[in-house]
């Protein structure tokens, strides 16, 4: 998920073959959001981000971790990752 959808994100995905893209809005209550076990990788050093990704993301070893919400910068904006375990806390709109 991203903070907000941009035309650049849509163009990128369409360039990879995606069709019929539709932007959906998800909301979560403030208290529920603040209660998530969150890791915010913004502001970490490159070495620290790389080390974390190498161990815990599927790009590397893919070891399990206990975070429910991870924020990290990407080339097309900050990505807000949520564990499927907390999907029930969000409401998906149009």
């Amino acid at each position, binding site marked *: 998920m991203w903070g907000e959808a941009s035309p650049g994100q849509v163009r*990128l*995905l369409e*360039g*990879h*073959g995606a069709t019929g893209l539709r932007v959906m809005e998800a909301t979560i209550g403030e208290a529920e959001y603040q209660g998530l076990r969150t890791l915010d*990788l*913004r*502001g*970490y050093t*490159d*070495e620290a*981000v*790389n080390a974390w*990704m*190498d161990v815990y993301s599927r*790009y*590397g070893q893919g070891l399990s971790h206990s975070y429910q919400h991870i924020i*990290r*910068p*990407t*080339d*097309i904006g900050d*990505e807000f990752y949520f564990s499927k375990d907390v999907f029930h806390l969000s409401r998906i709109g149009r």
Partner: protein
Amino acid sequence: MPSQYGFLRTHGGITYFARVAVESQLSSTWTVTWNKMIYNDSSHPYNGYYDTALETGVAVAAREHEQRGGVPQQVEIVELLANPVDTPAHAVRCATALATWKALGHSESDMYVVFEEEEWRIKFLTSDEICINERPT
């Protein structure tokens, strides 16, 4: 010779990723193919987005291989793992070059990657630099 390389680098807080597997065998001319390539565990069809990066990655390794006396090879790209969000073409180019370089029988320590002009690029160590790196400390 089979080989693979997982490219994972972070610059400016942004992570770049690509994983490429190749197989090489002797040939009379350089050829690069990916007709049977498994793309993202076959979860999505490959639409050719990274074609140029794959070709260029092999070419980078092939050029250096020939400069060091190597002979032409047929290089088959057998697998590509990419994520549109974290995998720009230059990450695929680097992963392909590194996988190919190892498939051609060379060492990964002969080369390094740098981030310049907004993209990751492959650099090769000269023979002098390799000697310096291999000097016992």
